[in-house]
């Protein structure tokens, strides 16, 4: 599927508004209650389930972020990104080929990925700014963005300084994210909040708001390296922040939960969360991504089940 341009709706940010940040509330118990009933409130079955799972695939940032990544490994991942589902399954479902949302790698692998994906329309996303901790010198973090953009990354996943959130230093957080956004230039910026390290859902809500004010195109939960990554309660808080930002400014910001989403059923719940809380404009890969590596495999099995009526096995689906 070709990438749609969202340049005309790209978030241009706002001034830092401390009052508005401080007005953000997040009642943990109430949020958990809503999150826990989400999966039970909506049920997507049969053809609809299949379509939703295919949609989920198009929203996956297929990711490898390991110290032992090699060029060959990244090439394999890119090939999987181009044909994520076995051809005869896609055919049986009456579709042309589909592709994932992006391939997500470290800076050193950007060139390899860009080359391998050439012509596919699939963007390469680079994690950046001293990922995952974000504690290298600011100058170098900005430089890292610039280098990745130069290498062909169309998306940059930055990490914020958690200490600014923990110290409620909103000005510092705003300045930092704004500087990153500037460095990104035409590349779209996903701001990773590392929600598992922010201490409270209220902090998640407030950090989300600051990142959006500073011009983030996406807000993203986690690096995948924290002990707690994407959860439904955190997601609820972040998508509500996106909705509030939209209601106040008319600007669209995308959402990317990352880490810990590995089951097809979870993917359905996340999509219905987006549909319920944000609505249809967010149900596409311009506005929504899964940061996931093993989710695809489970979805593939479910799709084959839909086609054959029998439960599938892992070995029947191509490795990345």
């Amino acid at each position, binding site marked *: 599927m070709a990438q749609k341009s969202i340049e005309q709706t790209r978030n241009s940010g706002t001034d830092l508004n401390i009052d508005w940040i401080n007005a953000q*509330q997040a009642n943990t*118990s*109430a949020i958990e209650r809503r999150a826990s009933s989400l999966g039970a409130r909506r*049920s997507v079955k049969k*053809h609809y389930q299949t*379509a*939703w799972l*295919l949609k989920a695939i198009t929203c996956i940032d297929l990711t490898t972020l390991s110290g032992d990544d090699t060029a060959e490994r990244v090439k394999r991942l890119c090939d999987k990104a181009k044909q994520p589902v076995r051809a005869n399954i896609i055919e049986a479902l*009456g579709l042309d080929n589909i592709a994932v949302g992006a391939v997500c790698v470290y800076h050193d692998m950007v060139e390899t990925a860009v080359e391998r994906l050439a012509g596919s329309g699939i963007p390469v996303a680079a994690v950046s700014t001293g990922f995952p901790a974000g504690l290298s010198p600011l100058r170098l973090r900005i430089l890292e963005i610039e280098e990745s953009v130069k290498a062909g990354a169309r998306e940059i996943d930055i990490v914020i300084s958690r200490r600014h959130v923990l110290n409620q230093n909103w000005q510092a957080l705003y300045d930092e994210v704004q500087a990153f956004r500037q460095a990104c230039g035409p590349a779209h910026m996903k701001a990773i909040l590392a929600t598992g390290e922010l201490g409270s859902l209220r902090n998640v809500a407030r950090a989300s708001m600051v990142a959006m004010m500073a011009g983030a195109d996406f807000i993203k939960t986690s690096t995948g390296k924290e002990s707690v990554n994407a959860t439904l309660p955190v997601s609820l808080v972040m998508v509500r922040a996106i*909705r509030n930002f939209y209601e106040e400014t008319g600007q669209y910001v995308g959402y990317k939960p990352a880490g810990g989403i590995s089951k097809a059923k979870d993917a359905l719940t996340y999509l219905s969360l987006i549909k319920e809380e944000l609505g249809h404009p967010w149900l596409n890969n311009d506005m929504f991504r899964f940061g996931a590596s093993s989710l695809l495999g489970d979805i593939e099995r479910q799709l084959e089940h839909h086609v054959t009526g029998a439960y599938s096995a892992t070995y029947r689906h191509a490795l990345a």
Partner: protein
Amino acid sequence: MDIKKIMEKMDYGTAPEAVDEAQNWLLGHKNRFGHFIDGAFTEPEACFTTYNPADRSVLAEISQASESSLDKAVASAQSAFQSWSQEAPHKRAKSLYALARLLQKHSRLFATLETLDNGKPIRESRDIDIPLAQRHFYYHAGMAQLMPIEMPERMPLGICGQIIPWNFPLLMLAWKVAPALAMGNTVVLKPAEYTSLTALLFGEICNEAGLPKGVVNIVTGDGAVGERIVTHQDIQKIAFTGSTEVGRKIRQATAGSGKSLTLELGGKSPFIVFDDADLDSAVEGLVDSIWFNQGQVCCAGSRLLVQEGIAEKLIHKIKTRMGTLRIGSPLDKSIDIGAIIDPIQHKRISDMVNSADAGDVFQAQCETKEEGCFYPPTLITGLSPADPLMQEEIFGPVLTTTTFRTPKEAIALANNTTYGLAASIWSENINLCLGIAPKIQAGVIWINGANMFDANAGFGGMKESGFGREGGKEGLLAYTKPKRSRELIGNIKPFEGSIAASEHIDRTAKLYIGGKQSRPDSGYSHPVFDADGKFIAHVPKANRKDIRNAVEAANAAASWSATTGHQRAQILYYMGENLSARAAEFAVLLDRFTGKSDGELEVEQSIERLFAFAAYADKFSGELRDVPIRGMALKTHEPCGIIGAICPQKSPLLGLITVLAAGLSMGNRMILVASEISPLVATELYQILDTSDVPKGSVSILTGSHQDLAAPLAAHMDIAALWSFSSTEVSKIVETQSALNLKRTWVNHGYETDWEALDYSEFLTESIEPKTIWIPFGEG
């Protein structure tokens, strides 16, 4: 089906729950049901049709119980009671445990049957109704097991007539049946005529669980059957959940019968949102509140009170959220709002909404099916407290709203209703939430939440939302009575004599109202004689205006109810001290009035009584309940408010002091009617009250005819509870007249109270309103 198209639109499609098993069960009964009596289904009689509200399809034919069917059910319950009440508690625990397990094993059958019969979304019956019903049986299996240890002084009441509504058919059955059985009672239960099916299935389950025949009997039919249950001579207890209108009739019909009664009635519960609340979560709370079960919930947060500064923002959020509610086939797993129970109810809701001549009506643009009984989520903004829709229960998915400026105003608006069932408070400020919770007159408070229920947390109302609690230990009080044996008081008459001039200076007994002695409004007095027929004095004949004045004075003394237990204790101790100082004088008075010689003992006992209730003032103070949330449920003990009490004719000092001290110790303001035989003991107490720092108006004492004063006391809308330790006739008057505002009553039906070996817990329990405050918490 074009998958590509779905990928574009991302619709949910349909996800219907299969109903084959439920249909098979109905077929197995040839879609015709008799009653479940004595462990078996009777031959169907005088059948009426029960429909699926979602599509008006016929589900089954249900029997209308005749008088003889009901008699059979009661007789069966009666004979079962002989053995069931004597069973070892462990045996009863095992039966309840078996019922809990069977409800789990057949959970999907119950859920689908409930949704077919009631029209509620399958998600709700599957995830809320049925699990809560199971939980209720588990919890009460435990209560059955622990009864001899935890409630050694209590025994079962007998046969319980239970009448339940159509909005939560199986859950309300569980709330009624589980505690009744746990305490050794047997039941005759009538489900609502619209929704009999899960109750009948439950009957079958009782047999599977090996419950002895007759312990549970299910009779079906309409309100006429309910009326017969209410007036049936062999039933000892009526438990009713339903409308306030019917509750009032039941109160009148059972008045003076000696039947124990609990009523769980209507509501117009406030949902209060402060400007520092998590607004998105508050909106979701509203969804769980007024758009739960199509708004057909007695404790629905139907009255939104929102702080002015955030009103516009919140209303916008609510309207947006209303747009994503899905209304339609209740069997679809992705439906939020199912069908209204019956076209009659649908019309009632429509008529009420259409009658609104104030406010703006907003209805969500949901796709609604043509056939079936669906009503869209509705929000009416811009209403004032004076508008009828802000006052009347709509019992549908209709939210009405108004604004407030300050916490104080929020409390005033919240309490500005004849109901008092539940309230929901939203703020991130714990000081505000916990400060407001005690000030709202409602049996259940949810902080940053809504519609949380558990078997271990009491549920029930104040004011015209009824009386009695379901759940928790307080719920078991409604299914037990004290073990002691009681005797009838018999007919007691004042001593007679003839008026003769006294050599002493004439004593002028007056009424005691608002801390002052005052002459009766009537201007009439009557003579009182001692045991020897000697004239003692004239005492005033109080009338309804004196009652009015006493209530006014009690209202002015509202701060008494906010004092600390320690302060109340000090005043009661001080009364004891002052009575002790005049002990000899009172002993003489008592001997003279009663013609006996145990006055000294009675004074001593009275002083001790004051000490005992002083001791309880800061010790009978609620508890923490273990409920399945992260957070806590607090059971608090709040004063009832103004309690009227008609004191016993005998034990004129000890009786009056007991009643007074019990009420005061828990923070109530007391209006007492003295013994008719020895009223001067009461009038002599005025000075003791004056010298003991008892706040003006917190105690008023009237003299006069019990029979004459009972009615105006019972009918006074501002008296929260009324006790009578007088005659059978007075008990009946109290219960009959109390129906007007459904105040709590506690009457002796002409039986003796053991004033010497007092059942303290009974007095304390009658002196408080239990309130359950749900406090979910946690962060990070």
